[in-house]
Each structure stands twice: as structure tokens, then as C-alpha cells.
């Protein structure tokens, strides 16, 4: 406990760094996965290859993936974040595709028949309807990202993993381990809560209205 009070600044600095490490890759992965997911939904023949490739990547343990990237990107935050982009992208892609596929095809047929362009259909119909599932994917990817980012400390990327690994190396520094673990947990919890709130407010009345027939 004394460690916490004496080093609050340092701990918060690490937390902020951890936050960065976790969220930037998710954002990047999102920007990649959204158009990719939309394309795969539209041209199902692509899906076979991309999804199998993704599934293979997912089976590679996170540490192994990061180590694999070191000779390519260096022993630094870049390898860590690239690995995180790959992981987040796998989860996001799954949820985005699921979100788009859950849309009743008659809705898409009606929008085409009415004269909406593919872009308009994506923006005004597909994305709003798929949003709950997509956001759930973002939430999942974020939480996993927070967890995996912890390992990043081993590669010199910083973050709360530093505390954990220091605590382990310095025999008997249970307080560091505790603080590190708790703060990682808190960060994950707030990510989850935060995005959940966004999910609830965006889903809007139309989802709730499904339970209340006129």
C-alpha cells in the first residue's frame, strides 16, 4: 500500500502508457477491419481465404507473435503494437462480419430497389443495424488488448507490465505485482464499462422497441 501512495505518479504514468499501448492498435485494427469486413460480406468468395488465415494467426500465442516480429520491427513498442493490431483485427473482423450477416437480406434488397448506392446502403443501413455487434467486438478486442499489452513490457514498450515483471524479478515485491495486476484489471474494467455505455446509448430506441409491440 505504501508503494502505491509513494509512487502514484509513476503508476499513473505507466497506466497511461498502457492505455496508449492497448487502444491505438484497436483503433488501427478497426480502420482496417471495417472496410475488409464489409467487402467480405459483399463478396463471400473472399471470406474463405481471409477467415482461415485469421484463424491461423489467432492460434499463435501472443508472445510468440511478438518475438516473431522483433527481427522485422525491432525490440520495441512497434512489435508489440503490431502484434496487438493483428490480434484485435481478428476479433473485430469476426464481429463485424457477423454484424453484417445478421441483417435480413430483404432489407438490403429493398434498399437496392429504392435506388441507394452501395455506399449509402453501407452508411445508412448496414452500419447502424450492425452497430451493436460491431461495438461488442470493439469492447472485446479492447479488453483483450489491455491484457496482452501487459506482455509488452518485456519488449521495452512500457506499461503496467513493467511493475509486474519488476515485482516478479525482485523476489518478495508482492506489492508491485499486486498494484500492477489490479491496475491492469481496472483499466480493462473501465474500457469495458465505457464502451458498454456507448453501446447502450447508440443502440437507441429501435432495439428496445422490439420488446414493446404497439
Amino acid at each position, binding site marked *: 500500500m505504501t508503494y502505491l501512495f509513494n509512487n502514484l505518479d509513476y503508476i499513473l504514468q505507466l497506466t497511461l502508457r498502457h492505455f496508449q499501448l492497448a487502444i491505438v492498435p484497436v483503433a488501427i485494427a478497426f480502420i482496417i477491419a471495417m472496410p475488409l469486413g464489409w467487402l467480405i460480406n459483399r463478396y463471400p468468395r473472399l471470406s474463405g481465404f481471409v477467415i482461415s488465415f485469421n484463424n491461423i494467426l489467432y492460434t499463435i500465442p501472443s508472445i510468440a507473435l511478438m518475438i516473431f516480429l522483433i527481427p522485422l520491427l525491432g525490440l520495441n513498442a512497434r512489435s508489440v503494437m503490431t502484434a496487438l493490431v493483428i490480434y484485435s483485427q481478428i476479433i473485430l473482423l469476426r464481429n463485424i462480419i457477423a454484424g453484417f450477416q445478421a441483417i435480413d437480406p430483404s432489407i438490403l*434488397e*429493398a434498399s437496392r430497389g429504392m435506388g441507394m448506392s452501395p455506399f449509402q446502403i453501407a452508411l445508412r443501413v448496414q452500419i447502424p*443495424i450492425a452497430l451493436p455487434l460491431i461495438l461488442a467486438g470493439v469492447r472485446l478486442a479492447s479488453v483483450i488488448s489491455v491484457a496482452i499489452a501487459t506482455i509488452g513490457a518485456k519488449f521495452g514498450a512500457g506499461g503496467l507490465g513493467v511493475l509486474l515483471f519488476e515485482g516478479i524479478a525482485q523476489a518478495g515485491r508482492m506489492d508491485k505485482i499486486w498494484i500492477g495486476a489490479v491496475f491492469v484489471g481496472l483499466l480493462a474494467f473501465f474500457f469495458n464499462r465505457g464502451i458498454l455505455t456507448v453501446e447502450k446509448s447508440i443502440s437507441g430506441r429501435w432495439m428496445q*422497441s*422490439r420488446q414493446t409491440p*404497439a
Partner: protein
Amino acid sequence: MTAIQFVNVSKHYPGNPVPAVDNISLEIPEGSIVVLLGPSGCGKTTLLKMVNRLHEPTSGKIYLGGVDIQSLPINQLRRNIGYVIQQVGLFPHMTIAGNIAIVPELLGWEKKRIQARVDELLELIHLPIEYRNRYPAQLSGGQQQRVGLARALAADPAVMLMDEPFGAIDAITRANLQDQLLELQQRLRKTIIFVTHDVEEALKLADEIIVLDKGKLVQKDTPCNLLAHPAGQFVQQLLNTDDRIRQLSLVRVESVMRPVDPNFDPRQFPCVSVGTNLKQVLSLMLSPMTDCVIVTRNNQPVGLVTFDQIRKVGCSS
């Protein structure tokens, strides 16, 4: 005035020796309801969808108001055609007002005009104005399809394409919706291509029926003429043309009635108003048993019909 013209239109799907649509040429007059009728797989839906280019013909041309539909930008074409499908396809994440307003928005109407149009359409389809802000999930199937109709009518297109729109609806509501469509058509006079496999629906709604079989046009005629002069066994069996009683349902009483003597006392006989069809009159003659029925307009007797007259009726238009 021809609203829609098909010239030698065919649709071949690769790997299939039989074409889905086989060299069809026909003209659809403005302001009429034309029904494409036939069994599953006859090509009626494929033919319909070629008008708004959801399917493209492998050969032949289609003209809308004299203009080759291939020469128009595809979305501009579609925004000027109303499209109603069986599963409705309302956007669940938008309100009823939002759904109806889609095409006007795509066409760039100002907000006030769109608002007014939505209210006007809600009235047209007999939905209370409060429903503006409801969501599709809160409406019944019949109500949803009425909204689907309103959505298709929103930009006031001259042409409407309807693909088995009442197929997924219960029989009672379906009859209601068919009546509403006829009522709307009286007011709006749209050119409507209506696809169905339901013979009764076709006979009830159509100004002209186009019978299709395996991609080929078999017969194109008014309901009456189809029943009276079917072109071959296929049409005979499809429409069950031997059913004389059904043919009576297509004839209105005022077309066969005899003038009534003004001194005649109408109270001893059952009465029907103008517009009633002969099948209903026959039904009245069977119970209570009577040989004569009075026809009234605004509660004034204007004619009478006898059983013998009905027996002599063929289906003439």
C-alpha cells in the same frame, strides 16, 4: 400511352439450358394494374426485376416511357420506381416516418415537403399520424406492408413494381390490403406491375393478366377474356376456367340489369347497390329463395336482375 415496353427480353442463367425468361415482348399501358401470374419458376419475378435492373436481361430491351432503361443511371432509374416486396424490408432502425422519407431524401426534397408528404401518405394508408415515431417492430405484418407501400409511393413514382406483396400476410388482412390497393389506384392511377401466383388475387386486382409458364408468355388479356377464352390447357387449368360461378364474380350487376318500373314495389325483393358482382347476387337469390333482385343507387331503385338473366351471362367486358 405505353408506360412500359418489353422487346424480345430474355434471361439466361449460366449452366441452365432453360431460360428463366424466354423472348418476351409486351406493352403495359399507363395507369393500369397488370398482373404477372404463373406457377413458381415461371419467370414472373425475374421479369419484374428487370424493370428496375435488379436483374439484367441477357438480350432484349426494356423501355420506360419510351426511354431505354439502360441509358439511365441505375440509381436514378430506381428512385423513380416504387418497389414493394413480400418481406417488406422496412429499416428496423428508423421510425415509420424515417422509412417513408427515404426516397424523397435521396432525391433532395426539403424537410418541410418531406414531412407533409409523410403525413399525407400515412393518411392514404389509413395509419394514425401518431405512428410517425413508432418503429417497424411495433407494427403488425399488415401495417408494416402498408408502410412498405407508402414508402414506395413516397416520391410519387409513375411506375410501381410489386413482388407478391401480400403473400406473407394472413388471408383476412390480405383481402383488406387488396381493397386498399384498388382504392389507392382509383385515386392515383399508377402503372403497376404486380406479381403473384394467387389466381384469385390476380382476378380481383388486374386490369390485365399476363400468364407466364417456364419463361414464356402464354396469354395476355383481361380477367374476363382469360376465363371466357383461355388459350390452351395450361391457362384453363391454372385459372380453373370451368368455374362459371367464379366468372360471375367479375361481372357487375349494373351491366346486366333491366330497368325497373317506377310503380314497382321494391320492398318485396332483396336489394343490392350498384357495384355488387353477380356472384353475390346469385348468393342472395339462393337464400332467401327469390328469382328477382332489385338494384339500388343511393337507396333509390334503378334496376332489377332476374335469375334467368344471370344464367345467360357469359363473361363479357
